[in-house]
């Protein structure tokens, strides 16, 4: 943010006033220019002196030119020199120089507003805040149409005397939108300024630097940091739907394990599509960053934005910067909130009696020769009446293991401020969340899920000399997790596998119940009697950057160097145990429960430990150049960096080798009159993972832009379309994060694989096996050619702004295993090669509407939309025999399976239809015989769905504010996505017998009496005896949804006397509901969890109430 202040400002003619805000701090002004425009001279002086030079644009014209020859003069001398011979004078007011016409020596014949005689002045005072409620210092307050004005003081307060006729105050501050307030009869006017969105002064974060938004040609989007401040621990789940270009889904809500998948513009490769994520310039995992500490959050999407990252940039880049201190009085912000959490949706299972009835039906279908039903009517009756639950259990396992509500809370405090010499930002945050597993009072230990985290951030900026700046940042987090001894995955899967009728939660005689089947554990025992596990993570990030201004060598030149060191640690300790399990076989004549022991437990806690950790060194140094020559703006950059990352607890030799890369990056931009833009970038990188000679690659990119609205011919429609920019970029970027295999250029030997035992007479001669691991191949990174065509448009007086980007990416050389080698060759692990290719096309768009309806009412609407479709060009596989099987030319990740035609209506129809393996009868799924060969086999599999990753992700939300109230909602949706159902708990009787729950919708199935042509389930059978549960279009369901992700109500208070009394300048009370509701056609489980049987920890909804305070 600091850099924002240093960016050269372009002159803006705005309602008759020209404002220049600069913040350099030279006491010695140097200016040697001939025939320079007066306002250019002012600009230069202002920049060097740090003074705001304020004047009425009508005082002089563009053609007013002067010669100046100043060396090391003071501000007054400089201004004197400029105004020499002109009918102008000035006064210095704080840090502002106000240029005024010289008082006339004679009476003005036609009095202008600023030369009114015998002015009747009134005094207006007030305070200026930013949108956070913090006082703004040095805000220029000008009476519109006059030269009267002042600046706010160090408390953000001002007092201005308004000449007669002054009707409006204009508040302006660098980086903020100017605001005009009609004085009316007010004596006190308090103003909150909002951050500037103006295209000329706004800057965007780009790779290794910042650029003025107007001159940027790349495709970037920014996430509104405010929208990330949700009551969730993990930031990754918030991105999808909050920025154009992000495709993402969250597959688990388990505290501490709830990372979402995020892809920028979708997936373009068969290997890792994860974007490069940089926090303060260093590759870092951002999931645990406290959103309150984030200053900017940018997403770089196209080649011009990412080429500087070379081999790391192809999947897009996310840049996050943390907050830095601002010059000014110390500002303290504090926040606390607390909430309850609940699952968005829990699967509903069939009850015991239903389970038994359905079992009987399925059993009869599979084994018609068995004369007996699977369960007697007596058993069903007893179960439904809950008679003797020891022997007739009826358990809803989710109800048993899960609570209805958990809770979370957040607290944080940050402090920022500073002087010219030093600025600081310090923050500390706390988050905790309690999971929804139940605990048993009998256990002495705590096995509930609890996740807590402490964040700290400190950023320090020191202006060591007038030209040297040092930034130091240290931040990190500590997290503690507490979990049951068994993993969440196994507890959920136990609950999915255990039917409601097999065992009770525990027997009435106190014994722990467990069936005989070895891999079916009592879900309740495995949750509450399995011990506990703790997990401790800590992360420390540190970076030190020095920036040296080299203006004395060449104007606009600077040098910067950075060193960073990151360290992370992870300790997991599990103390697990298990209980003896018993299974009831009946009651004896006296009615005493008879049990057999079915498992032997460990009644004492065991001990198991896992450690992890890593460290990274990163070095960067760069030369930057930036200068404006008249209407020509030029920037340049050359940067060198290198990184060394070590997995401190690597499990094998190869992964213990440091992960390194090094490279050069460069950028040159040129802008003419902010109208014609050109840009070239390059990255030249080397990665250690490739063969010597194949390690370095050059990745160039080029971009051009045209700000049409700057053209004079545009003036005619400028009132309707205030801004219009067209951009095009092309470039090549690489992806060295190809996964699969490091150092593919060396062969490996697979050790400790299957061996053989020899030896008799008690001689053990067991020899471990060894064989080829991976074959050596000379491979390199993937290469992406990226095209981007973008348009930015603003209409209706800037109330509506729209950005649309069309993109295409051709990814070649994708690191894939050869897929065309038959098994008989005996090659265990097929060799890799740069052989895959994918063409990804799409569009993303951002819409902002910001309309102040009246003094009290304001409406903001934001929306974004991303669509992409990657198409396989080469998947390195053998060609498929039939066209419908081809993956090439189809969407990457598309689902394949049988095409369901419906259900067989009769056994006669089965006999007359193509042969399907297994025992097929009426009510079974009938598949389409695409080959027409009379049988259904692998050749009949065709595309049946989009796949598990959505093609469309969108988000939108209105914010309505009225006076101090504001109500904001945010909706997120995905579309063109589907869910394939499979697995335990979903597929009825997948293992035969009492294994696997049944969803409550099991009653919706085909029976001869109810031959519904489109029930949820086909004819039910025991086990795997026909093709019903093969992957097919029958089981592919739409995964689209629209979620109300947040609903937030805010009430703002500032400048209240009672608040001031306790030292609070500003207070905001809010209520946030997160994941409040979801609209989807998919009903079995939270639709975002995706494929399979839904046996994941569901996502959470939370309701939080809290307050933010500023002191």
């Amino acid at each position: 943010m600091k850099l924002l202040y240093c960016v050269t400002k372009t002159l803006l003619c705005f309602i008759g006033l020209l404002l220049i805000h600069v913040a350099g701090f030279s006491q010695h002004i140097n200016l040697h220019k001939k025939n320079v425009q007066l306002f250019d001279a002012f600009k230069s002086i202002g920049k060097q002196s740090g003074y705001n030079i304020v004047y009425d644009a009508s005082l002089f014209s563009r053609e007013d030119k002067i010669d100046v020859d100043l060396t090391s003069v003071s501000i007054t001398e400089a201004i004197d020199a400029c105004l020499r011979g002109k009918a102008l004078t000035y006064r210095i007011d704080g840090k502002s120089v106000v240029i005024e016409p010289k008082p006339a020596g004679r009476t003005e014949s036609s009095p202008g507003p600023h030369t009114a005689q015998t002015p009747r002045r009134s005094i207006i005072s007030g305070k200026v805040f930013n949108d956070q409620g913090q006082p703004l210092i040095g805000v220029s307050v000008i009476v519109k149409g006059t030269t009267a004005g002042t600046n706010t003081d160090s408390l953000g307060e001002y007092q201005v005397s308004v000449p007669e006729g002054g009707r409006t105050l204009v508040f302006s501050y660098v980086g903020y939108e100017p605001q005009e307030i009609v004085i009316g009869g007010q004596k006190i006017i308090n103003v909150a300024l909002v951050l500037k969105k103006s295209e000329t002064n706004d800057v965007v974060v780009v790779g290794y630097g910042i650029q003025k938004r107007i001159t940027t040609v790349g495709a970037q989007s920014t996430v509104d940091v405010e929208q990330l401040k949700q009551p969730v621990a993990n930031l990754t789940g918030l991105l999808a739907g909050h920025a154009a270009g992000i495709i993402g889904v969250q597959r688990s809500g388990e505290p501490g394990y709830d990372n979402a998948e995020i892809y920028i513009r979708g997936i373009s490769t068969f290997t890792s599509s994860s974007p490069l994520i940089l926090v303060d310039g260093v590759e870092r995992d951002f999931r645990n960053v406290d959103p309150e500490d984030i200053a900017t959050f940018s997403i770089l999407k196209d080649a011009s934005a990412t080429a500087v990252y070379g081999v790391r940039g192809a999947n897009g880049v996310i840049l996050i910067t943390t907050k830095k201190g601002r010059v000014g009085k110390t500002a303290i912000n504090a926040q606390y909130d607390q909430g309850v959490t609940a699952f968005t949706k829990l699967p509903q299972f069939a009850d015991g009696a239903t389970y038994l009835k359905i079992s009987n039906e399925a059993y009869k279908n599979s084994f018609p020769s068995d004369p007996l039903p699977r369960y007697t009517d007596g058993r069903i009756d007893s179960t439904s009446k809950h008679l003797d639950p020891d022997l007739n259990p009826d358990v809803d396992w989710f109800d048993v293991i899960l609570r209805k509500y958990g809770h979370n809370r957040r607290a944080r405090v940050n402090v920022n401020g500073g002087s010219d010499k030093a600025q600081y930002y310090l923050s500390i945050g706390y988050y905790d969340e309690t999971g929804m597993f139940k605990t048993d009072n009998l256990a002495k230990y705590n096995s509930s899920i609890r996740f807590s985290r402490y964040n700290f951030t400190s950023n320090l900026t020191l202006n060591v000399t007038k030209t040297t700046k040092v930034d130091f940042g240290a931040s990190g987090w500590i997290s503690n997790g507490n979990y049951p001894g068994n993993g969440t995955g196994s507890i959920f899967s136990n609950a999915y596998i255990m039917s409601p009728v097999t065992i009770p939660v525990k027997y009435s005689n106190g014994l722990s119940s467990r069936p005989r089947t070895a891999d079916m554990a009592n879900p309740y025992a495995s949750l509450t009697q399995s011990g506990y596990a703790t997990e401790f993570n800590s992360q420390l990030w540190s970076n030190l950057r020095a920036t040296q201004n080299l203006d004395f060598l060449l104007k606009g030149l600077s040098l910067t160097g950075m060193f960073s060191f990151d360290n992370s640690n992870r300790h997991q300790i599990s103390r697990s145990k298990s209980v003896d399990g018993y299974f009831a076989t009946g009651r004896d004549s006296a009615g005493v429960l008879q049990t057999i022991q079915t498992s032997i437990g460990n009644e004492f806690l065991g001990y198991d430990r896992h450690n992890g950790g890593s460290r990274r060194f990163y070095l960067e140094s760069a030369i930057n150049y930036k200068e404006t020559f008249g209407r020509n703006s030029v920037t340049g950059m050359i940067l060198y960096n290198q990184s060394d990352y070590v997995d401190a607890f690597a499990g094998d030799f190869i992964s213990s080798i440091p992960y390194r890369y090094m490279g050069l990056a460069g950028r040159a931009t040129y802008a003419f009159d902010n109208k014609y833009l050109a840009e070239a970038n390059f990255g030249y990188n080397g990665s250690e993972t490739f063969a010597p000679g194949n390690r370095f690659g050059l990745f160039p990119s080029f971009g051009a832009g045209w700000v049409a609205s700057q053209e004079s011919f545009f003036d005619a429609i400028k009132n309707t379309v205030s801004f219009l920019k067209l951009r095009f970029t092309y470039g090549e970027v690489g992806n060295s994060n190809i996964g699969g295999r490091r150092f593919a250029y060396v062969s490996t030997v697979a050790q400790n694989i299957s061996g053989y035992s020899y030896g008799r007479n008690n001689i053990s001669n067991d020899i471990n096996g060894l064989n080829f691991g991976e074959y050596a191949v000379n491979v390199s990174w993937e290469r992406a050619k990226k095209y981007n065509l973008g348009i930015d448009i603003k209409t209706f007086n800037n109330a509506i702004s729209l950005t649309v980007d069309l993109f295409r990416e051709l990814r070649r050389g994708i690191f894939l295993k050869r897929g065309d080698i038959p098994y008989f060759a005996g090659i265990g692990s097929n060799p890799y090669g740069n052989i895959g290719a994918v063409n990804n096309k799409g569009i993303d768009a951002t819409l902002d509407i910001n309309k102040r309806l009246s003094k009290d009412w304001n409406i903001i609407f934001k929306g974004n939309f991303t669509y992409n479709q990657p198409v396989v060009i080469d998947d390195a596989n053998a060609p498929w025999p039939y066209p419908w099987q081809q993956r090439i030319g189809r969407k990457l990740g598309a689902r394949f399976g049988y095409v369901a035609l419906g259900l067989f209506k009769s056994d006669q129809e089965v006999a007359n239809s193509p042969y399907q393996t297994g025992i097929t009868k009426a009510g079974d799924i009938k598949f389409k015989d695409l080959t027409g060969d009379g049988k259904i086999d692998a050749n009949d599999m065709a595309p049946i769905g989009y796949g598990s990753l959505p093609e469309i992700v969108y988000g939108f939300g209105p914010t309505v504010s009225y006076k101090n109230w504001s109500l904001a909602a945010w909706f997120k949706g995905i579309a063109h996505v589907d869910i394939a159902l499979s697995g335990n708990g979903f597929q009825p009787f997948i293992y035969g017998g009492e294994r696997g729950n049944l969803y409550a919708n099991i009653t919706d199935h085909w029976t001869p009496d109810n031959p519904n042509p489109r029930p949820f389930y086909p004819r039910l059978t025991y086990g795997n005896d026909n093709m019903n549960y093969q992957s097919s279009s029958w089981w592919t369901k739409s995964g689209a949804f629209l979620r109300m992700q947040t609903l937030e109500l805010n009430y703002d208070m500032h400048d209240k006397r009672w608040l001031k009394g306790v030292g609070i300048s500003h207070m905001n009370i809010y209520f946030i509901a997160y994941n409040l509701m979801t609209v989807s056609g998919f009903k079995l489980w939270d639709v975002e969890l995706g494929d399979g049987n839904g046996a994941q920890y569901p996502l959470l909804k939370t309701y939080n109430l809290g307050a933010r305070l500023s002191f």
Partner: protein
Amino acid sequence: MNSKARIAANIALFSVLFFTSCRKYLDQVPNDRLNMDEVFKKQSLSEQFLANIYSTILDEGDPIHNHPFIGTADDIDFTWSGGGTLNYAVNVGNMGRANLVFDFWQGLYGGIRSANYFMQHIDENDEIRRLHGQDMIDRYKAEARFLRAYFYFCLMRQYGPVILMGDKVIAPDAPADQFQLARSPFDSCVDYVVKELDEVAAQLPLVAQKDGNVSDADYGRATRGMALAVKARLLLYAASPQYNGNTDALLANFKTSTGAPLISPNYDPGKWRKAADAAKAVIDMDIYSLYKDPSGDPLKSLQGIFSQGWNAEQIFVRKGNGLITWDVHCEPRQAGGWSGVGPTQEMVDSYFMSDGKLPSESPLYSETGFTDVDGQQVYNMYMNREPRFYRDVTYNNSIWQGGTMSKPAPVTFYANGPNGRNGHPTDWTKTGYLCRKNVAPQTNVGSGGNGQQQSRPLALFRLGEIYLDYAEALNEADPGNGDVLKYLNMIRDRAGIPQYGAGVNPLPAPASQDEMRKRIWAERKVELAYEGHRFFDIRRWKIAPQVMGVLHGMDITKNDNSFYTRVPTITPHLFLPSYYWWPISQYELDRDRALIENPGY
């Protein structure tokens, strides 16, 4: 000036970083890491490579999870129908090239490639040569060659004609057209494998040895007897109707690209002669003998075949195996077992009576009434049977001890009994019997078990089979040859039942070649029960369509003596026309266009 100095330092730092040697920074992989060249320089590493080839030998100890050769014939009904029990999918016909079950094609060919690679490179191992001489290199090479031949045999028994790779090791980066290889006619495959086995038999030692001495530590490595035994079984299969003069209509298009039949439609009696000679060659080695317990108790002899590891009957032994799993799945629930390996009534009816006759012929057989045996009411069907029956089958009210049982107790399969269908969702035999052949009662790893395992070597080939191979082949090649009866009778003698035309209480010798064939088949069904032979025998004899289908067991829905009623088992054991061989996967067909699918898939 101070700041100028700092600037200079900054520039210097920048330059140093910039010009740091890139090469060194990124060169990190050490040269002395393990690679294949190194493997063939060191003895222990080469031996590990060889051990991995050995590990390709299918572990047939655990048919529930590892292979389909038990439980998908008419021998056993595994009770489980769930996704993990693949035999069930085969039995209900739910197997095809899109629904692969127990597909060993890839694994076996992987072993073949490794063996080829080993043979090509083991000569490079100067360390072995220096320490143990060329002999050990030659022997290891012969072991790899034997294994290669055995893997081909395993492929052929399951898939029929196969692709012969010879000594070829196709490079992984070879172009796709080098992978377009076709299958050779079955007879050519047999010729190749037999030639290999003949040659390698001459190189292999009689017993495991090291440096010229018999070595206990090397037992389990390939021997001459193993090579000859594999050859004997292969030639027996090749001489059988499935491969010898098979004119089934389904095979009409099962031909090479040049039109040659992959399975010969012409009957060649000479094949039986070759098979007989091959079996005789194993017998004539004279180092193997039928296992007999010193006590002379036939039951103990019969159990000892399997429980006495490395005994002289065992020819080809896999020491490490999954027999523990077999034990647990066979043990009744009341012993902590899974209670799900049920011999069929068809098998029960195949065991001889103690007088050596089949139940259908013997006056001792009765399906009415009960006999009190140590206080247990035993159905007369189970009385007076041959020792192999009592070794192999746990029937209602038979006495058993093992697993978690602390003392012998009767085992029942009544619906409400401790092992019955009403006591557990899935773990109950659907035939009313449990298998106890080669079940180690000490094994105690089921529910509530203490984890004790009785591991023991698994005999993949044993002399008893070779005797029956010989008798069967000789009866076809030279009916009436005295050896036919001689070796058949040796099996019966050890089983403790009267012989045909010899010994005490002899039965009449079979009068004709046909009659003899029936007797040999009957003997084979019982002697080799649950050892994975029946699966192949019913195919090569082409009787599978007749014997498969609806199988039977006792009526497990009952709690009284109506239990003793033959009823169809709940799960059918279908035999589809395609089931003579396994399907070649679609994956393979797509990558090798010269490969054709097996008939019927």
